């Protein structure tokens, strides 16, 4: 039984020390190099006497950054990755919450890290990675470690504007890795192309299986995602066979017509998630790569990564949501209604070893969503309340319905905004739509992209929906504005028509 995430790295470094582990395409590191670098960094931090504390990493998307993550874990501390693209205010609020004593920065981010860290010390990656490895010190730390020790904190946006830090431990990450790998069928032959930033939980999908199996992950340069043909060339050059991207990244490629003329030749596994895949774009991908396996993934950061998966073994009808399928092995999903009873449709609640420890320095926020399972009155058992509503379809597959808070009361009627949304999506010339409720102005807003004219769409949906559900404003957009996480910027859209 694996108790420490370092076992993945160490076992693979022994078996495949010279194999390429992580690469940008231009710069790469082998498993042996990652392991030695991590042990050096771990030794450096351990000698400072810092233990069970947050260590901030100010670095770019690069193999060395993953090495720094594992260095922090060797030292018995937990890492917090900061992205250079984050605005200063957000970084400051994270640092205020953590109060870290030490940060590791690369050359490029050194100055900024020093400014933002305040009293905390900033050390250079080059210096810590060349520290002499002290096996004695590392062994002592390892003997003390248990699998519920924290390994990272990932910050997600909070509804109040203050980011919440989700604390994950060895056990939750190992449980997630094992069952994700089993469900998606990763192996030593897997070659990933990573798209998501390293400061989220999303890249665990590539990093952990890479270390577990001795696979390889390429960090795709961001600019490739602006140029679909360049991206496909990149995928072909490095013989990428597996991608786990956000939906927007796939839509970027298909909506600019790139798949009509160019094909990712080696791509065999395609996993997407975080958002609903627009039907037409999904279809373009399916038809371009009929031999590939497609997976829809669903899960909150609070349950480590993904919790549910659906493998596309049948075609989806237009208007039918792509299911999120079923939970990974050893993960429990309960749909709970407002009374806390299990229901056919209800809030998606997640239980099991995959649950993270909760939010850093935020006990109240933690206890609001990590709650006692209301169906168990006999002994303590935790569930994480996602705030998402799900239901089972007639095949018994889980389907994401909407956010809990997207159910509204308008003019005395109970309305699901998702219903208005799917009415708009039925129009042949609408490629993406989102329906929002402006609670202050008490009006329904519909935003969409596609060739359909506004007047035409209003006439179209008025045939499908009762009058009280018709949006006050229907607005055509050239593209959907997205947040840093790649999700639709709902707040921004509402403010745009105020």
């Amino acid at each position, binding site marked *: 039984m694996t108790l420490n995430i370092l076992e993945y790295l160490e076992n693979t470094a022994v078996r495949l020390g010279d194999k390429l582990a992580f690469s940008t395409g231009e710069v790469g590191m082998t498993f042996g190099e990652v392991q030695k670098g991590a042990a050096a960094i771990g030794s450096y931090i351990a000698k400072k006497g810092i233990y069970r504390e947050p260590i901030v990493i100010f670095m770019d998307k690069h193999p060395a950054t993953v090495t720094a993550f594992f260095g922090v874990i060797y030292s018995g501390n937990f890492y917090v990755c900061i992205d250079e693209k984050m605005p200063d205010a957000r970084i400051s609020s994270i640092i205020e919450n953590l109060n870290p004593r030490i940060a590791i920065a690369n050359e490029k981010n050194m100055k900024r890290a020093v400014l933002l860290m305040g009293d905390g010390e900033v050390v250079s990656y080059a210096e810590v990675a060349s520290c002499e490895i002290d096996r004695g010190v590392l062994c002592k730390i390892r003997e003390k470690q248990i699998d519920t020790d924290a390994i990272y904190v990932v910050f997600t946006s909070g509804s109040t504007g203050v980011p919440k830090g989700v604390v994950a431990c060895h056990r939750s990450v190992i449980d997630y890795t094992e069952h994700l790998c089993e469900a998606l069928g990763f192996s030593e032959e897997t070659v990933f192309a990573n798209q998501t930033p390293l400061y989220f939980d999303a890249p665990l999908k590539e990093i952990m299986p890479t270390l577990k199996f001795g696979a390889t992950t390429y960090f795709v340069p*961001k*600019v490739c*995602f*602006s*140029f*679909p*043909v*360049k991206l496909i060339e990149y995928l072909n050059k490095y013989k990428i066979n597996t991608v786990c991207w956000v939906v927007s990244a796939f839509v*970027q490629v298909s*909506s*600019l*017509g*790139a798949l*009509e*003329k*160019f094909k990712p030749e080696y791509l065999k596994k395609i996993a997407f998630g975080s958002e609903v895949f627009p039907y037409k774009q999904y279809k373009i991908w399916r038809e371009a790569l009929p031999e590939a396996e497609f997976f829809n993934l669903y899960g909150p950061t609070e349950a480590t990564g993904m919790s549910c998966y659906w493998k596309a073994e049948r075609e989806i009808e237009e208007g039918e949501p792509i299911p999120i399928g079923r939970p990974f092995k050893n993960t429990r999903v309960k749909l709970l209604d407002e009374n806390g009873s299990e229901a056919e449709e209800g809030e998606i609640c997640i239980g099991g070893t995959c649950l993270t420890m909760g939010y850093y320095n935020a006990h109240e926020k933690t206890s609001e969503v990590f709650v006692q399972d209301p169906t168990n009155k006999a002994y303590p058992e935790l569930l994480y309340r996602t705030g998402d509503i799900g239901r089972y379809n007639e095949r018994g597959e889980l389907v994401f319905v909407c956010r809990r808070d997207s159910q509204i009361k308008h003019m005395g009627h109970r309305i699901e905004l998702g219903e208005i949304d799917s009415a708009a999506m039925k129009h042949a010339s609408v490629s993406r739509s989102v329906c929002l409720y402006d609670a202050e102005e008490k009006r329904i807003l519909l935003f969409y992209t596609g060739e359909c004219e506004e007047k035409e769409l209003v006439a179209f949906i008025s045939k499908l929906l009762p009058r009280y559900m018709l949006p006050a404003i229907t607005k055509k957009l*050239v*593209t959907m*504005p*997205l947040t840093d996480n790649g999700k639709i910027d709902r707040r921004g859209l509402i403010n745009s028509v105020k």
Partner: protein
Amino acid sequence: MEELLEILGELHPDVDFETTDGLIDDGILDSLDMVTLITEINERLDVSIPPEEIIPENFNSADALWALIEKLDEI
């Protein structure tokens, strides 16, 4: 060219597109801007840019992009 500068100006009002090059190399235009830009050029200038022309060299400056549009318009 004016219409193109207008489209670009709507994306980033703070950038002087007449003099700036390195729109891609310096990260001024990101992947979202690219979709907007290509869609707007299609709608307002009636020029459809095929995927093989969506390469950094054609988008690094307003001049380069205009040259591409003129070339495509002739066909």
